């Protein structure tokens, strides 16, 4: 039983990281209908900025974390202004490819820094002894990660429900023309969507970096892993991202815990999300919470 519980706990930890990573993805898709393949790279850069500020500049970790959120906020906004603003109204393939191009460029820029080829790890700032609840253990890093994730997601839900900008964003997501006609600046909303997505990506990066160490390959791989999550949750649903993130985390842990090592199976946690993705696409393409907008041919 404790084995099961432990799997549940780590599933939730991993899942909440997925949720946070997927959140940024959804924010962009929701308002501008762009799928951002460079998300993993933004996550990685958020993480690297935090590290650089903390270790090289010497700013305390929490402050460095907040600063990195702000920096990535503007960074992502700049990316949108520079590359994506021109492509509003272009076919989907152009938009997908531009984010792929962006991914490559960010890769290049990261390779210019020491993070491209070398490995680092954050200095320990939390107690290393795990918290034990019965037989189930969770580390402080993971706990703090989950708390930050919960705070951010809660904050965003509130932001969308209550603030003017949040409502403007929802209006644009709903109907761009109508939103424009009541005076909402659509490009500004797009910019803001990217900026907030950058912010959440940086947060996710900081948390993942603390858990796994700073290895570029590991960090940007998260960008691809969010695909199954967002498809499961529905591409344009924040609630969906959270629920699907946690489901996916649990599925991966259970796959690792119960499937691997039996029947000659191995690293099923790697491929299972994509199999689920295909199944979801076939039976419920808009995901658990997404808007029904798929038309059949």
């Amino acid at each position, binding site marked *: 039983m404790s084995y099961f519980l432990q799997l549940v706990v780590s599933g939730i930890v991993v899942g909440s990281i997925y949720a946070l990573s997927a959140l940024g993805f959804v924010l962009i898709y929701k308002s501008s209908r762009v799928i951002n393949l460079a998300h993993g790279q933004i996550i990685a850069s958020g993480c690297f900025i935090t590290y650089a500020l903390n270790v090289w500049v010497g700013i305390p970790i929490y402050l460095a974390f907040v600063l990195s959120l702000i920096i990535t906020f503007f960074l992502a906004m700049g990316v949108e202004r520079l590359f994506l603003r021109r492509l509003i109204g272009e076919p989907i393939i152009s938009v997908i490819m531009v984010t792929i*191009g962006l991914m490559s460029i960010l890769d290049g820029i990261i390779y210019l820094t020491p993070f491209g080829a070398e490995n680092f790890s954050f200095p320990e700032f939390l107690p290393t002894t795990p918290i034990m609840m019965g037989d189930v253990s969770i580390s402080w890093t993971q706990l703090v990660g989950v708390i930050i994730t919960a705070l951010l997601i809660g904050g965003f839900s509130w932001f969308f429900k209550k603030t003017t900008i949040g409502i403007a964003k929802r209006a644009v997501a709903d109907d761009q023309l109508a939103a424009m006609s009541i005076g909402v600046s659509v490009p500004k909303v797009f910019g803001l969507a990217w900026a907030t997505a950058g912010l959440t990506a940086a947060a996710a990066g900081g948390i993942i970096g603390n858990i796994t160490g700073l290895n570029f390959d590991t960090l940007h791989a998260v960008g691809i892993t969010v695909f199954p999550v967002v498809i499961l949750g529905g591409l344009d649903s924040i609630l969906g991202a959270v629920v699907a993130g946690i489901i996916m985390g649990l599925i991966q842990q259970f796959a690792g815990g119960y499937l691997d090592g039996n029947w000659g199976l191995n690293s099923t946690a790697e491929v299972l999300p994509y199999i689920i993705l295909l199944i979801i696409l076939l039976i419920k393409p808009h995901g658990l919470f997404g808007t029904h907008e798929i038309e059949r041919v």
Partner: protein
Amino acid sequence: MAVNRWLATGNYFTSYRDEQRIFATHLNRLFFFAFLCCLFVWPLLFEVSNKYMLVIDNILIAIVAIIGLNLLTGFAGLISIGHAAFVGVGAYCLASFARVIGDEHILITHAWPVMIILSGLLGAVFGAFVGLPALRLKHLYLAIATLSFQMIFEWTINSMTFFNQGQTISVGRVFWFTGQVMRADHYVFWYYVVLTVIIICWFMASNLLRTRYGRSLIAVRDNDRAADAMGMHPGLTKVYAFALGGFFAGVAGALHAYLYRGVGIESFTLHHSISYLAMAIVGGLGTLNGSFWGPLAIRTLDLQVDNLAEKAGHIFSANLSLATALRPLAFGLVIVLFLMFEPRGIANWWRIVKSYTKLWPFKY
């Protein structure tokens, strides 16, 4: 029809048949065949190092794959982020034969044209299978479905012992009328083979686009409801577009396997899928000649960047990260700049040059 069949100063089409000719004038045809002759003759005149012959073969194989991707993404409008997996299906078809009957079996070494076509057919079957979700999905969702096919393909190859878990499965040297093709002639031999395959593929594709089956692809891309109303079956058309794309990819895969004399998963990863897409876009989506420009441009760029990176590595030898960064930076910039400033790709430049020479020396 213009009286002069050699030169045309404008459009004088009087029937659809005229308009659909592959060569508008005799001059065009002459140039085309002269160019083909050059392609066949030049390796006999110049001594090319093995390295460059390998590079050229590689470009040609990519062209075969891109013709398929262009039919799929350019003409039928279905985005595939899993094209390398289709190429991989072709290569692994050959590899499976090599595993079962041995890599020096007569089927592989002597009946290689059959094997290449067989690989293409298997690619088509897989293409159609992966295209099935197209019956329900559109645009982005379809793109993500192909992405997941790519991931599942990689996992399957990596975890099955039959496929040597992604390690290289070797493929024997082939025989020609003159006997076994040995190392010295290997790359030149495959140059001729791939060139022939490309010419066949090109004629197949351009003839296809003149028939209703080709036009239905474009109709479905432009507006699938209108296509439906005109009596085409959009769903089936999409599945068939995937099969077509898969066929060309499969052929390319088998050629790749023969050229490298081995199949390993490394050549068919997500990264390659992305780079195929980039080739199609840089070449020009929805144009056949774009399929030639794209691979040429991207592979040449790769090579030049490698050279540059190497020079940079020598100059700033203390700091190699610059050299590392050049490759993705150049690749990314090319994609982004093309999308922003020339979304119609190099094919558009070709069109401009062509229309210029058509009128030259006059302005109008």
